[in-house]
């Protein structure tokens, strides 16, 4: 039985022989999308964070078999199109957050999910909602960029 889902807006079918593969490895090795990273494989570090039905999920701990009918968004699918970036990506660029950059796709995906549920996060909200590891400890700028992204998103939604 194939598993049918959406990946970055596109309908795909995954053969059942992949049903036990963790989503992370399917995304990276089979779908060739390298933005989502491997850090630990046990759901602790968050480098593998992507969205399943708009919720932040650690993909190393999700078997493909559980994904029938789901919509997955990876860092590659976050921007509307090639010429624009998601406001969170824009904020990340404005603040110049990354150091080595390895964790940042996961951080961005976590921030997007946080801001979806908490559009004006306090420092406590950020502490609770942003639990991804950054080994370079770029937390000061991740915090600043999350707040900046909130400002950008709130400003654009106010215009509507």
């Amino acid at each position, binding site marked *: 039985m194939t598993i049918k889902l959406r990946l970055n807006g596109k309908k795909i079918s995954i053969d059942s022989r992949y049903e036990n593969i963790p989503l992370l490895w399917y995304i990276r090795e089979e779908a060739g999308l390298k933005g989502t990273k491997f850090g630990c494989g046990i759901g602790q570090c968050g480098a593998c964070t992507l969205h399943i039905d708009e919720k932040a999920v650690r993909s190393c701990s999700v078997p493909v078999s559980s994904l029938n009918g789901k919509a997955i968004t990876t860092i590659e699918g976050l921007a509307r199109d090639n010429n624009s*970036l998601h406001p969170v990506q824009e904020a990340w660029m404005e603040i110049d957050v990354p150091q*080595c950059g390895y964790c940042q796709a996961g951080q961005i995906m976590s921030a997007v999910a946080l801001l979806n549920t908490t559009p004006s996060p306090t420092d406590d909200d950020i502490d609770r909602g942003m639990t991804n590891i950054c080994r370079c400890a770029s937390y000061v*700028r991740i915090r600043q960029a999350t707040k900046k992204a909130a400002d950008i998103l709130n400003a654009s939604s106010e215009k509507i």
Partner: protein
Amino acid sequence: MSSRALGRREFFKSSVVSGGWLLAIQLPLSTKTASRVPDDIKESSDWSIYLSIRPDNSVIMESPITEMGQFMRTTGPMMLADELDLDWEAIKFTQDAKLHLSRNKEGGLSYSHANMDTGGSHSVRWTWEYLRKAGAIARQMLIETAADVWGVPVSELKTKKSVIYHSTSQRSALYGDLALHASQRRIDTNTTRLKTKSEFKIIGNATHNIDLKRIVTGEPRFGIDMAYPNCLQAVIYRAPAVGAEIVSYNKTAALAIPGVKKIIEMERMDDSYWFSGNTQYIAAGIAVLADSLWAAIQGRNTLNPQWKNTSKYANQNSEEQIKTFHTLVTEDGPAKETQNFGDTKTAFNDADIILQQVYEKPLLAHALLEPLNCIADIRDTDATIITGHQFPIRIAEEVERFTGIDALNVEVICKPMGGGFGRRAERDWVREAVLLSKKIKAPVKVTWLREDEMERDLHDPASVSQIKASLKNGNITGWHHRQAQTGGGAQDSCFPQGVVPNFKVELCTFKSHIPSGAWRGPQHPAWAFAAESMIDELAHAAGIDPYQFRMDLMLPARTFPHTNWGATIKDSGRMAECYKQAANLANWSKARPKHTGLGIAGHFCHGSYAAFVVEVAVENGTLKINEAWGAIDCGLAINPNHIRAQMEGGFIDGLNAALFNKINVVAGAVQNNQFNTFYLGRMKDAPLDVHTTIIQNNHPPTGVGEPPTAPAAASLVNAIYAASGRRIRTLPVIESFNHEEEYV
């Protein structure tokens, strides 16, 4: 105009490629870079840097220095682009740095182009002269060409953002217009002038990371992201205990996993390396090779290997070793004297107050977020290696040493690293991939799992330091430091050496076989933790404010020799200025609420000075780190934005290490080998902000990768003391507090 006579070392090459000027310049070695290069290389090497200026004035540049989050991919080009007066915004950067090596007639290897290495916070120091000269030479070629074409003196020409101007005749030309012509130009590099500080247009600017867009859009960048044609995926199940050998494993079960192709045994290997002397460098292991990484992982998980350990390395136990260190330092164990100034005995006899304390720091893990990985394609007479490495020349050396292939025939593609911290300076993971590819006569990509990275680490050594120190009239008069540790030495030429007149350091003799290696600021965290804690304790014993006490210690400004690696001189005045700026930024004298306290600590390493004040709150057995303020003196600040980022990240890295980082080795095996047993600091554990002052002066640029990390531990325990009256002398700090760890 024809060329003037040029010596061999002034010769440069440039050629035209795809309609663009591909610039390759051979530069005379500056004395600074020359000191890095063995004498036998100096006379013979081709030094050059690649830069392509197209007719449409666009520029493609290869950023030469390896990147591990320390921003050298950005800083390197800034230095060159400034001297060349390039339009920074119009530069496109290639993704990778390629290895180019040369050999002298005695067979010694060196980089043909800019020094690619990163480590010891030295990348800027190694390339400051070279990259600027490369840019200046290219500019000179362009303006001399323009001068010829226009028939005007060179002195009347100005350059700005990739354009040459002759204001008198109101003429201008794009670099791209003249590039082809300029590429033929010979110049006398003895007449090449470098800019003065006031002329810099790019250096000194808060510039953003050149790879920002690639990073935030998830473009494949790291070694672990790379594919290679016809390449098998390999995961190696290595013996967890140091010294162990394979007894048996379930080969059939592994081969039964769909996609698994081969099972290869990997030999245990000892080697002698700079940190630990002779010890195990590569573990015995079973490599599972498959057509997909997931198949290889599954194959590895079915192996169920049995090991035996009859080696002399068996039964390494980190807690037992630390206990032994305590005994050695406190009970006069055999030791080598490494520093002895003045007469500590007399100083102690004359003292008003004597303190004696023992400071303990455990083994630290690197915990690189991108686990080690390497693609190796070993062919008959040449090879290709793809990985991230801090010292890429070592990769070519490894291939040559273990396959006989000439190092000059090794293609190395250097990828940015998902963390380096000294671990990616080693050779082991490259060697494994090379040996595996050689064995199977096919390309292979070896990927390490998290457990592999934690277990096969070369840890920052565990160390125990006893300090006995004396006060007379509120001044430190004597200091006797005894240290025992897993490997390496002591940073005993750091402060307070020099400012304390009677000063003695002894390193106790002990041979551990727990592999140890360079961590961020090797051995500086251990030294700074002990020294800046004791300085704090002395201040409190003397009834003097800890900030004032440090100022009195460091002033008047004096310079002293620094005799360990990384610097030749240390300046107590520059150290004092860091303390002062950090304290001012923190509003040191402002009263804090109850249960809240400030701690101050500073350190000099690798030529730079850094000091921090951190504010913590201690309540109901819980520790909260509120905020921090830091000051750094790294001489000329090339990119204040990234210096600030290093201060933020480096300091929090130091805090996290002091708070949480402790590796336990039992029967030779790392016990806490995953992120659910080894906790890495999160957002909630970090201060809300780290404010930074970058001190301005006329010193040449020095590094910022490591200086912010070393003072973190002491600043933290000093703040905890101020907040709670409790003095912590054993790391990790978290063992003294309640802490909520979140496991998903």
